[in-house]
């Protein structure tokens, strides 16, 4: 246990901050309860998927600036396809859109591998390309989402045998998030592919010499990021009921969450849990500031300060850790 805490001190610290924030929230707003958790989880959803997408590529030693644009493409595609279609048809839409996301990610990855242009430049260019594609699909916000899909995010599951008083604390959106992430992440971590992603991020030359197909793994990592981005896009359509072609603020948020979550920019180190907890922390900070009716401009300052200070403390701890 102690060994776990020491090697996972960053995650432990994040959970502690989250717990502290929840306590603070309860103090500021004594009525804060299950419905607050529900709103928190729903707000966190798109950010969490964006962060997951970014996490994969950052672990692989890259960075993807086109995540928010890919989310826009998948969101509008889903909304356009579901507009006027039957409820059952939406299942195919979901599958199609997930494939589309993986395809876009694959294209990003292939371009990086084939052009040998640095990741950050390729994905910067693709940010414009995917944004353009979203605009071609839908000129202005519109489309629709199937009712059952929208319903997936609302309320909580009632599980027989467990009293509602308990399940209400685990809203559907939180469960959806956990299920989607784990369905991809757990097999990923167990697979040789997952190992290879960490390997190329850690030292691509050594990975190559160990027999890892560096290029294929890299493309795979970007494809996975595309898949997560598609989930994020779907969630956007599910929560708003429409698709909007303008990318939301998910790019910088995903980078911030990844770094706050203890994933090292440069690759090889980190996991998914940290960034997800970081997303919840950032959302909860905003909630608290709204509760406190703080001047909205101060809110921006506070968010920036938190980001900088947490990472600074992390840096200090890391320096200390290396000394001792």
């Amino acid at each position, binding site marked *: 246990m102690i060994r776990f805490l020491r090697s996972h001190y960053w995650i432990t610290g994040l959970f502690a901050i989250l717990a502290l924030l929840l306590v603070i929230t309860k103090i500021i*707003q004594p*009525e*804060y309860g299950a*419905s*607050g958790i529900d*709103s928190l989880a*729903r*707000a966190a959803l*798109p950010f969490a998927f964006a962060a997951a997408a970014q996490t994969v590529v950052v672990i692989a030693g890259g960075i993807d600036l086109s995540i928010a644009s890919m989310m826009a493409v998948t969101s509008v595609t889903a909304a356009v396809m579901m507009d006027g279609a039957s409820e059952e048809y939406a299942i195919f839409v979901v599958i199609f859109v997930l494939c589309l996301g993986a395809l876009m990610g694959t294209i990003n990855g292939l371009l990086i591998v084939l052009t040998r242009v640095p990741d950050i430049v390729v994905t910067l260019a693709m940010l414009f390309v995917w944004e353009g594609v*979203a*605009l071609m699909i*839908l*000129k*202005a*916000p*519109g489309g629709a989402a199937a009712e059952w899909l*929208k319903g997936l995010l*609302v309320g909580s599951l009632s599980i027989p045998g467990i009293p509602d008083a308990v399940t209400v604390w685990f809203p559907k959106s939180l469960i959806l998030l956990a299920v989607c992430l784990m369905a991809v992440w757990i097999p990923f971590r167990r697979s040789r592919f997952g190992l290879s992603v960490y390997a190329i991020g850690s030292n691509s030359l050594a990975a190559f010499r160990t027999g890892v197909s560096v290029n294929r793994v890299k493309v795979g990592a970007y494809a996975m990021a595309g898949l997560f981005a598609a989930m994020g896009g779907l*969630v*956007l359509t599910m*929560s*708003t*009921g*429409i698709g*909007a*072609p*303008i*990318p*939301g*603020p998910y790019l910088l948020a995903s980078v911030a969450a990844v770094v706050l979550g203890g994933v090292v920019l440069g690759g090889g180190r980190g996991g998914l849990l940290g960034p997800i907890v970081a997303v919840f922390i950032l*959302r909860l900070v*905003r*909630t608290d500031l*709204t*509760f406190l*009716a703080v*001047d*909205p*401009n101060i*809110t*921006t300052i506070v968010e920036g300060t938190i980001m900088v200070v947490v990472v600074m403390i992390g840096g200090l701890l890391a320096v200390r850790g290396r000394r001792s």
Partner: protein
Amino acid sequence: SDYTIGVSNTVQGNGWREEMVCAMKAQAKASGKVKSLNIAHRNTDAAGQLEDIRNLIEAGVDAIVVNPANPEGINSAIKEATDKGIVVVAVDQAVTEPSAYVLSNNQEEYAYLGAKWLFEEIGGKGSVVYMRGAAGAAADDDRDKGFKRALAEYPDVKVAHEVFTGWQQDQGKQQILDYIATGIPFDGVWTSGIDNVIVDAFVESDVPLVPIVGADNAGFVGQLNSVDGLVGAAVTNPGSVGGAGVTLAIQLLDGDKPDAQTVLVDPQLWENKTEEGKAQLAAAADPSLDPEWPVSIMIPGWTTYSKEDIIACKGPGE
């Protein structure tokens, strides 16, 4: 009575939106009925606005005034709010959720009015430069409908060039300068509110001015009054609609229901050709305002604050 009113806005750092927020604060203070104003003001999308509205619901506000990111995307949160008895007023842009009250600027009419004036001005034929807002934005789409409606009425008018400024001054200026440099003649410019830099571009390039349609931003109104040879029209698009939204919310909380769920604030057009228009422009001009702020800082019948109030930009308790 002491109300708590929540505000949700999704564009930060734009003069129009800043004026809207200041109008909300000034009106809340002037009304004397608002205890505190809880403002969520940032750059985000509809999903982010859903989050803000839900946070406001959790914060226990009595009413929410929103400038919606788009007409449909935030319906679910609005419904949640109204189900809890919270009054929701959408300003600037309509929403399709029926339980919300709407007090919006009529964007389609805004574009139609200005475009029609422009096409008349160039004699019903010729070509115009069509400088739109941000691609993919709901307001831009509404305005496009109005512009296209006017265009359909003047079959001899052609769009020489259509471009998105993204509602950014620098982009608009570079785009018009580039187009002027091509040397292709055109007869007029319709802008979606990025207007004063367009006039500057003509003046700096030393090319003859053509008729220009803009919004009632302080900078452009000043130019309509002062720039030699500039023929143009300002279409009102008051940011102070935010203040009106607060008034409507307070009325609703007080139990006064308006006749209709939706009130459209119809735009006016002030041209610097007619005496009447000149007088309106002269009266409206206000060089002390930020050039990006609309000069119509008050809406008679809806707002009760003074100019000092809105400029002070202080809400209740500040």
